[in-house]
């Protein structure tokens, strides 16, 4: 190889490394696609703060919105709590269930949160963290949209808005349960 070629080849060899770094530094390491989207939702059996049993199985045939939250998750969980309550009231007669799973929290603080926002949809603590690991959650808030056949169709990370909830739920409502 000629001397001239070497002069170019050596700096050029650094390009792939630079390109890799340029790509790597732009990617948010926290944004990881959930492998669960498209798969059957993991079942769970919890007890709500009111003492009622809460299982995913019992909601089959309905569109289920599973929301993971905590009372210390400020401000995101505080922003989305009214959205969830509003949506629950608007959609409950159309076959939508909103389920709140409170993780890594204290019972008193969580119950105060539910009272403060006047949440009327079922909310249950997950004291062992099993449900949150089963759903592959990284933090709060995270919300899973489950179709009538019990499959996870979408995952939303961060605070929900009315817009996000509507665009996720509406298409699932039109699908058959069978």
């Amino acid at each position, binding site marked *: 190889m000629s001397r001239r070629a070497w002069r170019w080849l050596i700096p050029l060899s650094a390009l792939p490394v630079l390109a890799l770094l340029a790509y790597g530094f732009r990617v948010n*390491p926290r944004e*990881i*696609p*959930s*492998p*669960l989207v498209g798969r059957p939702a*993991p079942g769970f059996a919890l007890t709500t703060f009111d003492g009622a049993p809460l299982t995913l199985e019992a909601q089959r045939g309905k569109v289920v919105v599973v929301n993971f939250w*905590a009372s*210390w*998750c*400020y*401000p*995101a*969980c505080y922003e989305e709590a009214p959205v969830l309550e509003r949506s629950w009231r608007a959609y409950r007669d159309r076959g939508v269930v909103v389920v709140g799973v409170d*993780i*890594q*929290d*204290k*019972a008193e603080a969580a119950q105060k949160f539910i009272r403060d926002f006047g949440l009327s949809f079922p909310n249950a603590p997950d*004291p*062992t*963290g*099993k449900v*949150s*690991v*089963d*759903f*592959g*959650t*990284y*933090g*709060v*808030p995270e919300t899973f949209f489950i179709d009538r056949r019990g499959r996870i169709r979408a995952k939303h*990370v*961060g*605070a929900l808005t009315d817009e996000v909830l509507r665009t996720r739920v509406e298409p699932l409502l039109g699908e058959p349960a069978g």
Partner: protein
Amino acid sequence: MRVRLAPVATLFLAVLLIGAARGAPAPARTVSEAEVHEIAGGLRCVVCQNLSVADSPSEMARQMRAIVRERLEAGESAAEVVQYFVDRYGEWILLSPRRSGFTLLVWLAPLVAVALGLAIVGVLVWKWTRRPATTGAARRVDPAMRERIRRETEAEP
């Protein structure tokens, strides 16, 4: 803004966990702390970057260690326990990428780079050592210089 899971649940959770453990069925086998540590050491703590589940003091990592222990006690193999986490979090949860498929590249690329580097160095060294020496011993010392050296060395006492 998104809030990370923080180790906030304290006594209440501990009490709940102890209660849950008491109600759990007898384990199929006893699991040592070392076994749990071995598996947890290969799992990325999901709420804290660049820490393993074995090393993180967070509540989430503690719960994950409990899940590892429980699944081992139920008779699952280490590989099955790891797969349980991979199924839910993706291969992202593994601190060392798998030596198969796309992530095999991560393991092979450094070896290829080292081999390539050695090859380049080898070729260069071979070229340099083979190059006819144009300096040093080959240079002729002209008679005038030879005469001067002789004179000066003889002048020494």
